[in-house]
């Protein structure tokens, strides 16, 4: 185990001070003089032609400075994965809550009143609310021009209401089932789940008279947002600046451009800065969160539990627009077989339009759904065969050097089996529990990289450093982790690294914080920048000290000759000399986009993410108690072992596992957005039940010792996996406790009581 100065330590969050003092600035804390308040007018129908929009009364209200509709806005369709969106609804609305107009006024109350004065005449169209119905012939077509929409990822199969169909075939599925001693077929269902960050969406846009646009927004992807704004408004990217301030949680729900075009448009027309902050109800009605999914799984096994074939049919309900749906459909398909050798595999994964709020990215990106199905079924199989569920997984487990089960590249730094052994030990797996108590296990494989990032490291005259990175801290602590990587590489104290992040004008490009990629991709970029700066210092000092670069040691802010620690120069001395006397200031550059290895399976002719990404693994065990009279499930203990390579900040890694597991527990037991013909019934935090401090047990996070050679100091990622195995682990624990198998989420007391009743009836 290598010894590091800061990597692997429990370093305090570099933004911690301002967050405990209340001085951290989030979007709603930022204002400009003469700022106006913006509000969106939204459709009340799920599917309708827009016949007439009357904004005259709204315009005349004193205090209103701009009222805009599709007529004033860019018409271009956008969204990187599938360009099916427009700024405002054009010609027709496709979901309740879709923006049709927007208002900017001197006061928020006036803006709200103006919204109520806008009148729209519609012609209602037949609507469809379930993905299965939307796939039937004769279903109302939601996007008539689907085939004409641009996509960034070629080869997408799309037709009628199916905006993406991913097909994966490996081996010979028919032969695989023939080889099986037993075949299992099960169906599962999961719900729409809200992201639930505590800070709603917001934007502040300032369109200046000379055409320069500055946008502050709590977006996870400032650069993608800038790109999209430039494209639809048809202005050069250099005229648009997007800054992400402190963000109050993202988890995927704040991915991509969202409110920014409305802010920009209202600011352009009113001539003043405009701020739009969604209230909680709006954030739920028009939020972006987890796709509901229907899953059919068929698995063939030998009598000793070896998997011979798996077949998945996944139907993701996209809502009215694709958003991250095409990516989610792909990830759900690629990671559903789990961390097991799967010789024969067939997956059909669909993303289907319905007239509901568009669903999009949320921690796990399609995989919590498909893994709920895959991992629940593995336990069904274990029970039937009389094999311990943990042993069944060990039997089929992938190990170091194996090929990734679907993408078929050789895997390095694999510690999956270690995660199983850690939870086995921690949970006293196999030991008897009390009546109505049970233990359940689930595992997963995921990815943690594959996108591009770049960074600059400036060494100040006093040897302290400024790190510029496009990577966005959404609360997960990347500012701290990236600073640690630079401090470690340069051999200086963490407190002497100051980070500037997520500003498209001053920080170098980073694709955005999503997909668990930040530590690996941005981490490698900042490490390369620090290395470059270090090399410049080394080159310079090797002359001063009359030594070869290879004979120099960098440590504690000094560079000295190996074996002669007194023959040294401090980084400060070297930097000062470079600034004023010779060589020029030391500025380190790093850019990173991993090259895909030669053997790398393409899914439908392309890869997503664009580049190769390392594999991460996890196993979780839930210990539950079920009250058979009320159906209530209490989680007694929860264990999560996560292979993330070398943790850069162990406190942050624990925090990610604990926080994600809590979200997974909510997803498993209490969270659901209820729809009635496209209308959301529970658009508030009282009726959308997220776990509180009394609902979550002491989660035990564990990390096996591992080192991934391609990651910065051996690190992989850990942000998303914490959520992925939670629901099946809990479903499996419930079965272990009271013998009922619930195949739909959330596992409510009603479902348990119903199942218990049926079970008792059956058993006479």
């Amino acid at each position, binding site marked *: 185990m290598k010894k590091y100065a800061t990597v692997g330590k*429990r370093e*305090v*969050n570099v*933004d*911690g*001070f301002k*967050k*405990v*003092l*209340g*001085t*951290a*600035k*989030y979007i*709603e*804390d930022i204002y400009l003089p003469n700022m106006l308040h913006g509000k969106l007018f939204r459709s009340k129908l799920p599917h309708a032609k827009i016949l007439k929009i009357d904004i005259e009364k709204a315009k005349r209200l004193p205090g209103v400075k701009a009222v805009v509709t599709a007529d004033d806005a860019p018409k271009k369709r956008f969204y990187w994965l599938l360009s099916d969106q427009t700024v405002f609804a054009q010609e027709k609305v496709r979901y309740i809550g879709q923006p049709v107009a927007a208002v900017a006024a001197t006061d928020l109350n006036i803006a709200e009143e103006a919204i109520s004065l806008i009148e729209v005449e519609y012609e209602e169209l037949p609507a469809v609310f379930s993905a299965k119905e939307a796939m039937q012939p004769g279903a109302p077509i939601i996007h008539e021009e689907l085939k004409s929409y641009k996509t960034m990822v070629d080869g997408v199969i799309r037709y009628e209401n199916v905006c993406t169909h991913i097909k994966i075939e490996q081996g010979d599925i028919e032969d695989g089932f023939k080889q099986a001693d037993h075949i299992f077929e099960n169906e599962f269902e999961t719900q729409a789940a809200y992201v*639930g*960050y*505590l*800070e*709603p969406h917001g934007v502040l846009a300032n369109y200046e008279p000379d055409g320069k646009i500055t946008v502050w927004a709590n977006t996870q992807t400032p650069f993608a947002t800038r790109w999209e704004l430039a494209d639809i408004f048809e202005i050069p990217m250099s005229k648009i600046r997007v800054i992400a301030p*402190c*963000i*109050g*949680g993202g*988890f995927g729900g704040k991915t991509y451009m969202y409110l920014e075009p409305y802010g920009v448009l209202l600011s352009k027309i009113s001539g003043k800065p405009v701020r739009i902050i969604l*209230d*909680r109800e709006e954030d739920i009605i028009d939020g972006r969160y987890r796709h509901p999914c229907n899953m059919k799984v068929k698995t063939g096994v030998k009598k000793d539990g070896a998997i011979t074939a798996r077949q998945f049919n996944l139907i993701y309900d996209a809502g009215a627009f694709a958003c991250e749906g095409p990516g989610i459909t792909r990830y759900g398909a690629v990671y559903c077989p789990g961390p097991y050798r799967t010789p024969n595999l067939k997956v059909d994964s669909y993303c289907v339009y319905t007239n509901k709020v568009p669903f999009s990215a949320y921690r796990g990106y399609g995989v919590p759904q498909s893994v709920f199905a895959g991992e629940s079924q593995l336990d069904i199989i274990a029970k039937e065969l009389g094999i311990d569920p943990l042993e069944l997984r060990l039997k089929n487990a992938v190990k170091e050097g194996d090929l990734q089960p679907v993408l078929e590249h050789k895997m390095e730094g694999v510690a999956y089996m270690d995660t199983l052994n850690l939870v086995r030990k921690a949970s006293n797996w196999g030991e008897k529990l009390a009546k109505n108590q049970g233990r359940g296990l689930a595992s997963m494989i995921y990815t943690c990289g594959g996108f591009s990032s770049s960074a600059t490291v400036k060494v100040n005259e006093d040897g302290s450093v400024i790190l510029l990175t496009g990577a966005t801290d*959404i*609360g*997960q*602590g990347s500012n701290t982790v990236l600073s640690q990587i630079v401090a470690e590489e340069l051999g200086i104290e963490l407190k002497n690294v100051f980070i500037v992040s997520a500003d498209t004008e001053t920080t170098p490009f980073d694709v955005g914080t999503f997909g668990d990629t930040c530590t690996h991709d941005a981490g490698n970029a900042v490490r390369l920048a620090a290395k470059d700066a270090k090399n410049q210092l080394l080159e310079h000092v090797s002359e001063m000290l009359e030594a070869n670069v290879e004979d120099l040691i960098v440590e504690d802010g000094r560079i000295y000759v190996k074996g002669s620690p007194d023959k040294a120069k401090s980084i400060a001395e070297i930097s000062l000399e470079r600034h004023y006397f010779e060589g020029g200031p030391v500025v380190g550059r790093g850019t990173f986009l991993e090259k895909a290895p030669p053997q790398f399976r393409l899914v439908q002719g392309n890869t997503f993410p664009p580049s190769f990404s390392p594999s991460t693994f996890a196993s979780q065990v839930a210990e539950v108690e079920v009250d058979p009279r009320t159906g209530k499930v209490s989680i007694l203990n929860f264990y999560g072992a996560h292979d993330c390579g070398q943790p850069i900040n162990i*406190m*942050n890694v*624990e*925090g990610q596992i*604990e*926080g*994600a*597991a*809590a*979200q997974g527990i909510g997803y498993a037991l209490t969270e659901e957005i209820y729809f009635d013909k496209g209308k959301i019934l529970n658009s*508030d*935090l*009282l009726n959308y039940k*997220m776990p*509180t*401090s*009394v609902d*979550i047990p*002491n*989660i035990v996070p564990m990390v096996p010792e591992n080192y991934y050679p391609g990651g910065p100091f051996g690190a992989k990622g850990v942000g998303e996996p914490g959520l992925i195995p939670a629901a099946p682990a809990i479903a499996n624990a419930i079965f272990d406790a009271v013998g009922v198998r619930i195949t739909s989420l959330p596992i409510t007391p009603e479902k348990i009581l119903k199942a218990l009743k049926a079970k008792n009836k059956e058993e006479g």
Partner: protein
Amino acid sequence: MKEIIKLIINDEPYEVAVEPHRTLLEVLRETIDLTGTKKGCDLGSCGACTVLVDGKPILSCLTLALDAQGKKITTIEGVAKDGELDPLQRSFMEHGAIQCGFCTPGMILTSKAFLETNPHPTEEEVRKSISGNLCRCTGYKKIVEAILTTSQR
């Protein structure tokens, strides 16, 4: 029609003109520019807007500014004294109890008031005391640890 009201916030007097229907949360954030208190739901369901009024935690989104007159209001900005962090603030930082930080002001005020009434709580009591403050990032574990550690010091 605006009324002039006097509020005492973090031991400082403020005289502001507000409409009678404005909540304490709105006035703190928009009239007095103390933006440390957060608006998470504006409906009393998340706890992010928690401030102390006469030492008791209340939801400022459900409190009229007018009704807070004549009372001692403490916001997150008033917790650190003379540039020194409160032990709770220090504990939150050291335990990694802060991720996005949006729930942090409310959590700190709720737990500060709680520890005044119950200086040596059990873990269960701590969990119950903050059950009105939602956190979506941390899973609560490190927040509970931070509060327990502070109580043990």
